[in-house]
């Protein structure tokens, strides 16, 4: 101790399972979510008229009858808002102008004094369409035969690392060319070639999207919403409306589950656009559950082709992958999911020869967005089954095969750079041991078959190379600490972790730290977005830097007042102490008012406010032809999952008996919250494996309700999920930490698929492995009659 800047030891409460900061508010009903904010009787209610066609031209819109309805205050259409909006590729208008591209595409918006009047007004808007041929398959959409959905693609603005292919439906094309795949096949003792199809699914936060917007006479706009990305919304919506970011304010209360669906901009821009036409009045738009299913972001569909080969002794020699991402009508994030799946396309393995083609394809399906795992669950679903198949083909145990091939410190990655220290091998061993790999237990009944399966994963935060975080740390008259951040708590526990990091870095009890919420872009410091499992690492670094800045100010001020060496001072439990003079003073006495000078002639110091920021400065681009480069990403979190399950021969129903999971989080700032993430991700992954599928027929979702789109309930979860934490430190993480929020859902589908194969010897083209599908496949395979 005493080292005032570097603090090499891990200080309390870092690494302790502190209770959540927000738990009491949330169990008493006091926590305020967007829909809970009271706006009084000035509030207007918005509803959206949406396209009934997957693909059509708008030939006319007549809003006159709607405008004449008493109680209607504004009716807007695409003609009112010419600007483009988009995160990586500006490919959409807030309201459709000349063309609709999915069922649900916003065509017009109404604000009225009640929801009922707004609904009634929608019925009075007359729209004429000229229906066009829809594109309903990602692979077909990428072909030259397909109708082109965005004829103006060449004119859209795109980030430098996104490569749209004008004249086609391909909004991004990412390639890996490493080694010589063609030549390598001859050296393979075994080759597996498979096609997988991963359906669209939805995030299904229990809270649907809510946005309330208000514009004033001076052109300033305020948006209240359940947002993962308040700053990105400020930036993108301001750009689309042609106003200054400084005139756009986003206030983001608690988020009732996000999983990516509330990142970037989706329906928020609709509320803002309408509000600009009824200045002074707040306009509220709440998505119904049905709208949430197909007009909020969905997880993209994927058609994936894998070919992989290994040598006789079980070493991976080559991989050739083709991914067709069914990105839907627009691509807020899809273009970058395409890129991320490309630069991660080897899976967590060292493979000397890799050829990958990853296509982001416009279709007339709902808009693909980021969802927990950002393409990795979809990609790993097939890849990790092929790994099992390859191992079995050469007669090697799949765990042994993974042991040989999985990434280790210094392994050469698919992009040509080197893997950093990683605990992937430890995760593999722990998971295999926890599931008693190699021991086949007997089924619980004669009409059941039992199996075990395991899968590995890796995932990097997928983001621009220079995504930044900032934070401030302020102290109050009683010595308590306020931490300002611009990242969001979606339930993952970010605020609690930030409080722990600030307490540790400053030297105060955890209970003294409060996070200044709700996030408000007017007062909160900048944060790129709450996505990519990047907050503990990136925002955490900013918070630690801010707390250390405050600490330095306090120690310098005290040292000067006491005439001592600041390196001999420390802050312990909220008390500044001197190791040389043994003097001490509580923070509360000095952090606002400063300290008297040694001779009592004046004062030193004043209100303490620490500031900190973090932005990675080492990420380089990748060669557009080969996908090779120095450092494509900041780091990879790795892990493993295993399951034991039973297949009911009478019904085809799958019961997950138990699960095991281990992830290398670098350093668990709050171990119980890490475990909670691992459990929650396991169950969400299990739900996507067994139940979830958006049934899209001619672009129309057939099952937009919880009755028809089933998610896991309390009765579906296994008896036990063993969660294990591995800690191989991240060199630039706060005390070594890296993220884990999304990762826990990545290997679940292939682990379950591998276990199903182990139980009944059947593989499926893709999830969900519903009872019906399993039963019919067993019939066809002759397992049952």
């Amino acid at each position: 101790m005493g080292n005032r800047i570097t603090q090499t030891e891990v200080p309390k409460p870092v690494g302790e399972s502190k209770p959540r900061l927000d738990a009491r508010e949330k169990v008493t009903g006091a926590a305020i979510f967007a829909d809970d904010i009271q706006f009084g009787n000035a509030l207007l209610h918005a509803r959206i008229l949406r396209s009934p066609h997957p693909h059509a031209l708008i030939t006319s819109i007549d809003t006159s009858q709607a405008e004449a309805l008493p109680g209607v205050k504004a009716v807007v259409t695409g003609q009112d808002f010419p600007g483009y909006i988009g995160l990586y590729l500006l490919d959409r208008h807030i309201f459709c102008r000349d063309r609709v591209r999915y069922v649900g595409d916003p065509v017009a918006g109404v604000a009225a004094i009640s929801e009922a009047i707004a609904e009634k007004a929608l019925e009075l808007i007359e729209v004429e369409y000229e229906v066009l041929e829809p594109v309903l398959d990602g692979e077909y959409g990428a072909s030259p035969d397909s109708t082109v959905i965005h004829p103006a693609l060449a004119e859209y603005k795109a980030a430098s690392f996104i490569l749209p292919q004008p004249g086609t439906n391909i909004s991004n094309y990412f390639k890996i060319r490493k080694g010589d795949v063609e030549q390598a096949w001859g050296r393979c003792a075994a080759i597996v070639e498979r096609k997988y199809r991963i359906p669209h699914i939805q995030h299904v936060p229990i809270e649907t999207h809510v946005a309330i917007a208000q514009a004033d006479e001076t052109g300033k706009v305020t948006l209240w919403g359940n947002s993962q990305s308040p700053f990105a919304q400020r930036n993108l919506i301001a750009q689309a409306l042609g106003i200054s970011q400084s005139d756009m304010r986003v206030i983001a209360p608690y988020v009732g589950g996000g999983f990516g669906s509330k990142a970037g901009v989706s329906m928020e821009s609709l509320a803002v656009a309408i509000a600009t036409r009824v200045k002074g009045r707040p306009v509220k738009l709440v998505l119904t559950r049905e709208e949430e299913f197909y007009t909020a972001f969905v997880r993209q569909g994927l058609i994936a082709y894998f070919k992989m080969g290994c040598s006789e002794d079980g070493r991976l020699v080559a991989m050739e992958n083709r991914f067709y991402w069914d990105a839907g009508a627009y691509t807020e994030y899809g273009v970058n999911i395409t890129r991320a799946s490309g630069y991660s396309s080897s899976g967590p393995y060292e493979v000397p020869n890799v050829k990958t083609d990853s296509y982001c394809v416009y279709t007339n399906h709902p808009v693909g967005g980021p969802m927990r795992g950002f393409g990795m669950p979809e990609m790993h679903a097939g890849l990790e089954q092929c790994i099992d198949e390859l191992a079995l083909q050469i007669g090697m145990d799949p765990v042994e095969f993974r042991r040989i091939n999985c990434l280790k410190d210094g392994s050469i990655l698919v992009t040509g750079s080197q893997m950093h220290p990683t605990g992937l091998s430890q995760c593999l061993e722990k998971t295999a041991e926890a599931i008693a790999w190699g021991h086949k237990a007997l089924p619980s009944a004669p009409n059941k078959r039992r199996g075990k399966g395991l899968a590995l994963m890796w995932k990097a935060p997928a983001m621009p190379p220079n995504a930044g975080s900032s934070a401030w740390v302020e102290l109050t008259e009683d010595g308590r600490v306020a931490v300002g951040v611009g990242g969001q708590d979606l339930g993952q526990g970010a605020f609690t972790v930030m409080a722990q990091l600030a307490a540790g870095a400053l030297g105060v009890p955890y209970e003294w730290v409060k996070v200044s919420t709700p996030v408000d872009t007017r007062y909160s410091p900048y944060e790129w977005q709450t996505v990519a499992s990047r907050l503990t690492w990136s925002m955490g670094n900013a918070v630690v830097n801010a707390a250390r800045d405050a600490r330095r100010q306090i120690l310098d001020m005290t040292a000067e007042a006491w005439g001592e060496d600041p390196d001999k001072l420390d802050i312990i439990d909220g008390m500044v102490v001197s190791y040389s003079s043994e003097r001490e003073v509580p923070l509360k006495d000095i952090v606002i008012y400063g300290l008297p000078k040694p001779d009592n002639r004046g004062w030193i110091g004043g209100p303490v406010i620490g500031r900190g920021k973090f932005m990675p400065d080492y990420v380089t681009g990748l060669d557009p032809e080969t996908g090779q480069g120095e450092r494509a990403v900041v780091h990879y979190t790795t892990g493993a999952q295993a399951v034991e399950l039973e297949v009911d021969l009478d019904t085809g129903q799958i019961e997950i008996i138990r699960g095991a999971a281990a992830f290398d989080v670098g350093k668990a700032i709050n171990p119980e919250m890490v475990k909670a993430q691992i459990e929650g991700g396991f169950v969400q992954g299990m739900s996507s494996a067994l139940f979830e599928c958006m049934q899209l027929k001619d672009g129309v979702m057939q099952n937009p309700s919880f009755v028809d789109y089933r998610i896991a309930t309390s009765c579906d979860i296994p008896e036990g999920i063993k969660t294990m934490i591995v800690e191989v430190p991240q060199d630039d993480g706060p005390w070594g930490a890296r993220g884990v929020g999304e990762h826990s859902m990545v290997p679940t589908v292939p682990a379950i698929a591998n276990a199903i194969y182990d139980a009944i010897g059947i593989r499926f083209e893709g999830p969900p492995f519903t009872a019906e599908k399993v039963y019919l496949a067993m019939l066809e395979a002759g397992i049952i009659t």
Partner: protein
Amino acid sequence: MGFHRINLTINGELEQVDVPANMTLLELLRESLALTGTKNGCAAGECGACTVMINGEPVNSCLVLAVECAGAEIITVEGLARDSQLDAIQKAIIDAGGVQCGYCTPGILITSRALIDRNPHPSEADIREALVGNLCRCTGYVRIIEGIQEASRM
């Protein structure tokens, strides 16, 4: 539309309210009485986020008309804690780490309070069954179930 004057007890307090015939209990609680702890997740009785107790029974308040609640005793999440002292279930769910985003939490607390009121020592299977209508997307239910088991031991 006609209004109906009803009396009902909400969290121990007698209320007299004028409600339109088509107003749901959820709307009455959230919009008229500012009891926003009860959440709306689907407005179709499928997610359980709006669960409240009506005369001791857990019910989806989005499916109940306010007028049907004349004379009823309603408990919402705001009524669980007494004099700032958390209910045993509230405390146990916090300690077990069963809270993440918190949106399903009010409904889950009400369902589990009603369960323990009628079955003070539920088995794990009882708890799972009671919660089947309360969807949670964050936690995977593991710690919620642990918390309720712990609360039933208090």
